[in-house]
């Protein structure tokens, strides 16, 4: 893989990198900066990308590590959930008929994931949203696969606890009662 090869793929990957950056940083300006820096780093190091590594998960990994470094630099260990831009928690109306219950449910799922601690959220985003395997996720986050699985299990326990009370139905819990979405 060369910078030239990767540079041809970046414009196509951009929407997914942007969405991922927004979802891990929770801030538009941070996300823009993050994607740009990650692309520069990616291009500089394209020769290290092995033929058998998926370029997209490799770029996710650079976005993620760039963000972690940024957080360290700011001495922010974990952004408080108060800082989240709640606009991101809204969902759009789908032209295909979706019931208000589904729309509310989707908003609750997104909120439940976004409220996870950073490390667990990254694993959930990569596995459940981006569809990476456990091993690809481990590679992307540069952690052992056991860590991926234990973060995933903690994240799912937390999310399960929110949804277990009313299976298959929107939750009543105050923090999730976003009527605006329905």
């Amino acid at each position, binding site marked *: *893989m060369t*910078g*030239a*090869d*990767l*540079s*041809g*793929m*970046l414009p196509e990957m*951009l*929407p*997914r990198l*942007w969405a991922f950056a*927004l979802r891990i940083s929770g801030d538009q300006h941070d996300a*823009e900066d993050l*994607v*740009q820096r990650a*692309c520069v780093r990616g*291009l500089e*190091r*394209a*020769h*290290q*990308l*092995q*033929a*058998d*590594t*998926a370029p*997209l998960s*490799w770029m996710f990994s*650079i976005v*993620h*590590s*760039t963000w972690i470094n940024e957080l360290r630099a700011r001495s922010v260990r974990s952004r408080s959930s108060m800082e989240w831009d709640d606009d991101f928690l809204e969902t*759009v109306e789908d032209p295909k008929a979706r019931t208000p219950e589904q*729309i509310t449910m*989707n908003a609750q*799922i*997104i909120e439940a*994931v976004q409220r996870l601690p950073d490390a667990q959220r990254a694993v959930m985003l990569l596995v*459940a*949203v981006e*569809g*990476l*395997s456990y*091993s*690809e996720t481990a*590679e992307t986050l540069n952690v052992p*696969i056991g860590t991926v*699985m*234990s973060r*995933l299990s903690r994240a*799912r*326990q937390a*999310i*399960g*606890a929110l*949804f*277990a009370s009313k299976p298959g139905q929107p939750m009543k819990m105050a923090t999730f009662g976003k009527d605006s979405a329905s």
Partner: protein
Amino acid sequence: MKVDDITLMAYVDGELDIEERREIERELDDSPDLAERIELFRASSLPYQDAFAQQKLPPVPESLTRKIAELSRTHASATSPVPPGPAADPAANDAIAPPNIGLPPSAPVRSLMRFSAPWLAAAFAAGVFSCVVGLRLLPGLTGLPGGAATVASAPPASPWVMAAAGYQALYSRDTVAVATDPAVSAKTVADIHQIDGLPVRVPDLSAQGLTFKRIQRLRFHDKPLVQIVYLPKTGGPVALCVVKDAKPDQSLAQQKINDMDVVTWRQSELSYALIGTAGQVDLGQLGKLIAKRDVDAMFSQAPLPVRPVAS
């Protein structure tokens, strides 16, 4: 015995073998705590991809699109090919794939790693799609549609491909002897587009000597799986199977599963498996034609537009 959460998660996701399952079910009888934890994992099986596909995100800023385009152009013209090798800059290794790429994972976790996320209830088929080595053994993103020139050897098959190949092995020419009413097939195609949300195109392979026989809506792990069956002039039927899969495109790869030849690829968020009795039809060639859309479509309602990747 104290069952740890990772094992329990694998239990709920159906990833344990019979012995391991029984072990947990025995524990379950006298541990209310265990039942509670299982309930939490079950409740966490949610349509995440579907939900996030609905998330209202700000569009990619124009300034960013422009900068990345510039950056790409600069690199495309300025970089000369550098052979892959050890990193020159030691600090550059922080976000890079580990050195043991290609080695099999360690045995104890293997069974847990086989599927990435079969618990993505009602979500798209991506969840059942990630083999251990998955993407990594295959050529990169750019394999399709431009350069489907080579057919790579494949990684271990995805669970749905294994299932589809096993199913196909039961087919004989007699299975599809009775012709399906074209109106029924057209209705099935419409349902696949509208209800299953799969923009599947039914390739007309008559010029290649394969007669369309029928199209069926199957399910694998609760996700739609489309099976299109053709009959070649001789030998067993050939099936083109399709599931939704939001991962990047992947070029053609060929392998043998039991006694079936299987060619797989991924294109525009659909994963394809072309399956036939070994050694009868050149499936690699056929797969290339289908992937490059060098053949006409039957029942040709325009397929639904593919869901935008990250909106």
